[in-house]
């Protein structure tokens, strides 16, 4: 059992996929480290340690619960993430986890499910997207709304095309700006809400993206009639220990690493509006 493990396992990079200019996906095969399966649930994160640089929380962006394969998608924005993004095949990474609460896939049973992602926020939602079509009978209508900065910064482009072709799966993509060759939508992700067919009274939303985007979208969802108790968001804070011990990721009465990163929106809506927290 890896959860709550205080020491990292040393796992080699099995594959490196350059997603965009500054985003890579690293694949890890735990069996090559002689380890047991990570048994992650969609929405959970691992602590990834780049040797000599530091450790950061990164969501699991793919893999499978019944194999020893785990994917992490990383944007090179700080010292640790930049070091991780530069790793090559066979380089070792220290991995602790998985940690945190997962997306409410069981609670979503019977509901229309809308997945809303902004930028790198698609990474923690990708396992959900992998799950939904395979369990189609468990859910009502399903939809993905994805906003990114520009077409060249869209993640998982090949998969995105596959998802678009998946029957009964509504996929809407919008970007902030685009060139003439982009034939899709340009604009804010909330604008896409009116373009999908769901029953707001029976809809459950899973959302991850920049906080201002999530706040605006959550409000818009309420305006559409989606109950805020059925809107779930994944939060990002300064997670260090990942076990709720050090207090770095305290968010009001919550520790994001332990009580989150997935929260029901109504649990955190008030503190999410406070800029001091």
């Amino acid at each position: 059992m890896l959860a709550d493990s205080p020491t990292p396992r040393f796992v080699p990079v099995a594959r490196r996929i350059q997603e965009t200019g500054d985003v890579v996906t690293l694949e890890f095969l735990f069996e090559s480290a002689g380890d047991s399966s990570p048994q992650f649930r969609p929405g959970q994160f691992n602590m990834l340690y780049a040797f000599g640089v530091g450790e950061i929380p990164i969501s699991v962006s793919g893999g499978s619960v019944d194999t020893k394969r785990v994917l992490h998608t990383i944007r090179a924005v700080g010292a640790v993430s930049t070091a991780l993004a530069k790793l090559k095949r066979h380089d070792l990474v220290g991995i602790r986890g998985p940690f945190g609460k997962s997306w409410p896939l069981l609670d979503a049973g019977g509901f229309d499910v809308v997945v809303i992602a902004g930028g790198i926020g698609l990474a923690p939602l990708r396992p959900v997207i992998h799950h939904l079509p395979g369990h189609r009978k468990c859910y009502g209508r399903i939809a993905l709304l994805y906003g990114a900065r520009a077409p060249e910064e869209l993640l998982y482009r090949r998969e995105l095309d596959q998802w678009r072709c998946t029957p009964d799966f509504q996929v809407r993509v919008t970007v902030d700006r685009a060139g003439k060759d982009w034939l899709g939508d340009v604009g804010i992700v909330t604008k896409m809400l009116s373009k999908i067919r769901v029953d707001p009274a029976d809809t459950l939303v899973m959302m991850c993206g920049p906080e201002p985007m999530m706040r605006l979208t959550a409000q818009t969802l309420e305006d559409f009639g989606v109950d805020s108790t059925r809107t779930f968001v994944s939060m990002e804070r300064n997670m260090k220990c990942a076990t709720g011990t050090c207090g770095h990721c305290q968010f009001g009465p919550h520790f994001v690493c332990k009580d989150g990163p997935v929260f029901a929106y109504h649990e955190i809506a008030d503190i999410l509006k406070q800029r001091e927290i």
Partner: protein
Amino acid sequence: MKKIEELLREHPFVQNLEEEIVAIISGCAKNVVYQSDGYVFREGDPADRFFLIRHGTVALEMTAPGREPLTFLTVKGGEILGASSLAPPYRCSFDARAVELTRTFAFDARCFREKCEADHSVGYAMLKRFMPPLIERLQTARFQCADLYGGGNR
């Protein structure tokens, strides 16, 4: 063939609008179709019309020398285009290009403004319909300006 007033009633912009007002404003409207890659208007053009898009997509673009045109918003069926025609200096501030075959109701802006001025109940009803999409576009511009998708890792 349906009259323009009948067609107009099907557009989301006039949903729940008094029939009398629809009849008044429809006198300023005509059907205009743009082929794919056709320009609805260009930056600097007199803003003498506004549009209700029936079907299709229009890309709002900015251009700069040595750069590809930049699309900062797309507007689609059910949306408005050309609000610059409602306030001085009545000048278009960007290019609007049809991305695909696009059908519109094009309103003569002077005719429309005169009707709003002549009957303030018409003007106020229109104000209430123009404000929400314009506020949404302002919000979109703020988010784009903040470049929210630029950082973070989870």
